[in-house]
């Protein structure tokens, strides 16, 4: 009969019905490689989460949230320190562009990133030893001069130190911190916190801050040339600490003050007199901070008079809400016409009129006054908060443009030395602490490149993970953990009591747990579990510790579908040409012309070789018989 005399060659002998040992984590399906079925391959490619992308320092937010989730606070803290030297500061005052960009907003509410950052920052601030100190490289003998000890200058010094450079920071004021001390009120950022953050930096060794030194303009003092010749590179982070003046009748009366000057004196702990009926002119954060400090110091009332309508106010939403709770009043779409003073030159009132915000073609504010709407209000103090400038007349003209220091895409100022950089408000105009921190970080990187004769290169393109590419079925809706606040009644009576309070450990962990880890593997094990072919391997449940066994994965892409974070992608198999790749089935990728798909050269060769070998084995021998092994 038909099967009589059949034999199965040894190499093709299979167990009955192909019943095989169970695939194991190590072995997979040893007997039956299935990789040649594959048209697409799952590939782990971490992308940039939008939060990370939006943070000017590039904080790896997803990563430290993941550490917090797993109670690994020191790891989380160290992760932040890679990019941002002062998380206790940003954790309190940053305007958190990260949260604005957070994908979770499209899901329910953005992650309270700043509060978790503060939690980690304060965790680190309370450590006895600065944990990065022991791993710092030795100083390399080069020293950079930095002008300005605001966040820009401090960040630059910090990142330079991490690369082995010493720095000297020149600061015009008597204490360090720039606007962190002389602008941002203590009820936002307590002095002790700032002092500790700065001490942490100077404690690293190699960072010297010389206060009371105004570069350039002090007679007989330090000049730009001193810096250019005495140091290996220069970083200008001067900020903008001169308040713009408002030229109105009576503007020089006693009781009319620049808001910046008012906040600076307060911040530096000097006595400042403020009345019980305060008008603040301006529609931004400085106006809000000044009004709220005035309420605290004078114990009276403060009204913000702005050209901006309520919707146009440039005050961050939570500050606006807090100001309202504290009793700050608003008179939007008004302008100051004239200050009324008594016989001794003391302010007694102001004439206001209706007005609208308008700008000229250069973007400068040009109020549109409604004639005939003037009226009088009583007041005893007027704080002007209509913008900031900086005195730059000591810098070469080529360095400046429209009141700012001019720089190329790397923050480099046009100077023959090619080693003068700038950053922060003096380069950008009024912006944010975190912008200055980011500029400081980038300047340190580029100064290092210049000093070690490497070319300056722009950052490579990044792929930002959009919400739509997450598998959101995996993310339960959960409300954002509210940030605790001191009750308005209590806080509005004190210049010291912090307005915004910290997350508890439990709250920080709960909030971190909401993070969807956009585009970044967080070791959830889904791929590992769902693969029907046991082709996903891992040695630890952690990012970057998974791999695909290409000899067995047949490209069903279940893992890609079920990856919550979207870090797994499908990539066409023809994009790969590695030497140990699986041989494609001829039927899947025919090597011949006119076939339906093209084959990678390496795999094509494998098939050609196999055909040649087969032909050789069929060669007719002298006895007339073909030899088959």
């Amino acid at each position, binding site marked *: 009969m038909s099967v009589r005399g059949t034999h199965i060659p040894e190499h093709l002998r299979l167990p009955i*019905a192909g019943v095989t040992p*169970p695939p194991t984590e190590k072995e997979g399906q040893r*007997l039956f490689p299935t990789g040649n079925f594959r048209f697409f391959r799952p590939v782990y490619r971490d992308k940039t989460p939008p939060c990370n992308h939006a943070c000017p320092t590039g904080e790896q937010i997803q990563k430290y949230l993941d550490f917090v989730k797993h109670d690994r606070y020191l790891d989380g803290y160290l992760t932040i320190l890679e990019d941002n030297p002062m998380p206790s500061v940003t954790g309190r005052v940053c305007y958190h562009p990260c949260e604005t960009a957070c994908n979770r907003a499209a899901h329910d509410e953005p992650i309270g990133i700043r509060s978790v950052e503060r939690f980690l920052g304060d965790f680190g601030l309370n450590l006895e030893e600065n944990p990065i100190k022991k791993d710092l490289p030795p100083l390399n003998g080069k020293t950079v001069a930095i002008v300005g000890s605001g966040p820009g200058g401090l960040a630059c010094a910090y990142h330079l130190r991490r690369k082995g450079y010493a720095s000297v920071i020149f600061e015009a004021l008597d204490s360090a911190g720039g606007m962190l001390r002389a602008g941002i009120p203590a009820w936002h950022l307590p002095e002790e916190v700032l002092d500790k953050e700065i001490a942490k930096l100077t404690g690293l060794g190699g960072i010297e801050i010389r206060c009371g030194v105004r570069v350039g303009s002090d007679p007989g003092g330090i000049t730009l040339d001193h810096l250019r010749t005495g140091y290996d590179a220069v970083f200008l982070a001067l900020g903008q600490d001169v308040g713009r003046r408002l030229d109105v009748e009576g503007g020089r009366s006693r009781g009319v003050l620049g808001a910046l000057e008012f906040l600076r004196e307060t911040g530096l702990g000097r006595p400042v007199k403020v009345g019980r009926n305060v008008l603040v002119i301006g529609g931004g954060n400085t106006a809000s901070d000044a009004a709220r400090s005035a309420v605290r110091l004078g114990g009276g009332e403060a009204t913000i008079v702005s050209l901006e309508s309520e919707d146009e106010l440039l005050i961050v939403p939570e500050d606006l809400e807090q100001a309202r709770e504290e009793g700050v009043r608003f008179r939007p779409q008004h302008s100051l016409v004239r200050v009324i003073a008594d016989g001794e030159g003391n302010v007694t009132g102001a004439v206001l009129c209706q007005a609208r915000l308008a700008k000229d073609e250069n973007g400068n504010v040009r109020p549109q006054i409604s004639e005939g709407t003037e009226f009088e209000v009583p007041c005893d103090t007027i704080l002007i908060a209509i913008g900031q400038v900086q005195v730059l007349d000591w810098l070469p003209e080529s360095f400046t443009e429209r009141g700012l220091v001019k720089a190329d895409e790397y923050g480099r100022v046009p100077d023959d030395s090619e080693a003068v950089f700038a950053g922060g408000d003096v380069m950008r105009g009024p912006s944010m602490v975190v912008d200055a921190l980011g500029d400081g970080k980038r300047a340190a990187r580029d100064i290092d490149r210049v000093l070690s004769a490497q070319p300056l290169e722009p950052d490579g393109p990044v792929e930002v993970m959009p919400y739509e590419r997450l598998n959101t079925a995996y993310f339960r809706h959960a409300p954002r953990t509210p940030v605790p606040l001191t009750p308005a009644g209590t806080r509005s009576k004190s210049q010291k009591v912090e307005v915004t309070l910290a997350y508890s450990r439990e709250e920080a962990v709960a909030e971190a747990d909401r993070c969807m880890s956009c585009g970044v593997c967080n070791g959830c094990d889904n791929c590992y579990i769902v693969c029907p072919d046991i082709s996903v391997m891992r040695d630890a449940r952690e990012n970057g510790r998974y791999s695909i066994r290409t000899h067995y994965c047949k490209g069903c892409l279940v893992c890609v579908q079920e990856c919550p974070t979207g870090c797994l992608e499908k990539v066409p198999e023809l994009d790969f040409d590695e030497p140990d790749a699986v041989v494609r089935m001829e039927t899947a990728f025919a090597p011949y012309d006119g076939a339906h798909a093209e084959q990678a050269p390496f795999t094509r060769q494998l098939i050609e070789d196999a055909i040649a070998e087969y032909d050789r084995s069929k060669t007719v021998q002298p006895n007339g018989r073909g030899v088959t092994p």
Partner: protein
Amino acid sequence: MTSVHVDHGLTSGAPPRLAPAVRTPDGEKFLNGMAGTRIRQNGCAAAAYAALYANVDVITAYPIRPYTAIMMNLAQFIADGILDAEYIHADGEHSQFSAAFGAGSCGARAYTGSSGVGVTYGYEMYSIISGARIPIQMAIADRTLDPPGDFGSEHTDALCTRDMGWLLGWAATPQEVFDKSLIAYAIGEDPRVLLPQMVVQDGYFVSHIAGEVEMPAIGQVESFLPPYQLPFPLDPRRPVSHGPQIHPEQGPPLQLERARAMEDALGVIREKTDEFAQVFGRKYPHFVESYKLDDAEIAIVISGGHSVTCRAAVDRLRAAGVRIGMARLLWIRPFPTSDLQEALRGVKAVGVVETNLGLGGASYGGILSLDVTTALYQMDGERPLATSFMAGLGGETVPMSEFEWMAGKLGQAVARGRVEKAAHWVGFED
């Protein structure tokens, strides 16, 4: 005889069993009370009783006439506490057979069944189940395939599946249904075979017509058909992979193994049929029932219930001096080539009763004659002439007169030394 190649240490040592098959106290009482009695029951009931005696673990059902009565009987057994089995009412035949397959893969003795278009609806599963070598049993009470919507018997449904690697046996009486169900399990579960089985009975002619069926003692059944033991069950305690994806070159050896198992089953069928006779005292031919063939000049080859009429027709024709005999096929897969050759040796002309449709086939008639003529063509020495008769389609009976008409055609062929054509449509020709 080759034996299946089982290696990798996967099947050495005693494989784990699920819970041992236990009969319920009521079941035991019921069957003990039944032992040795003869009860009148139709083919469906006989099949259900056989499954009860076989103590099946899992039953998967989906209703379709006429086999439904089998499942109704089994459901009643379970409801009455006589049978302890998992009864799965599936959402269609494909899932019905899949569930039985899954149960069998885990080591359960699984039982399923269908009729007509139900049989064809689950077609995908046939090759999968036999390829996985899972010996589940399927009862078929055959039925025409649509169109028209016809409940009558026809063998086409089961014959369509003949090449899918299942043992395919035909029973002609309720008693034979009962016996064959037990014998088929014993053959299919034999480690030398490991193939699923179809036990077919003619719809209505057998499934719904009562005959006497002898009820054995439990001990008899258990000595003949011990508890099911798959050598490689899916079991978390000793994991194995079933149904792996393979390289193209690994397909042919697996198919050859399955072909070998089919051929090896021939010997096992002989063995088990003999063993059955010893235990139960009913002796069946291994493959072919030869009726008055010894000196026959012409012969009818047939399967299933119409053989009852055929036997009577042979007697009548013999009385009229016609040297006619009948060969009834008890198994169609594996096809008993040599047994049929032996049975028909010396016969001059053979006519195959088709009772099925093989549209556009070599004979332009039915399916069965293709196998029969191939077997005859391979015969040593003188070969009989062969033709076939399309009869009993759509649930029609094949009356005595039609058998006589067939005998006439065969007699003519002998006289002329050749057949008129390969297939005759009985009732549509002169």
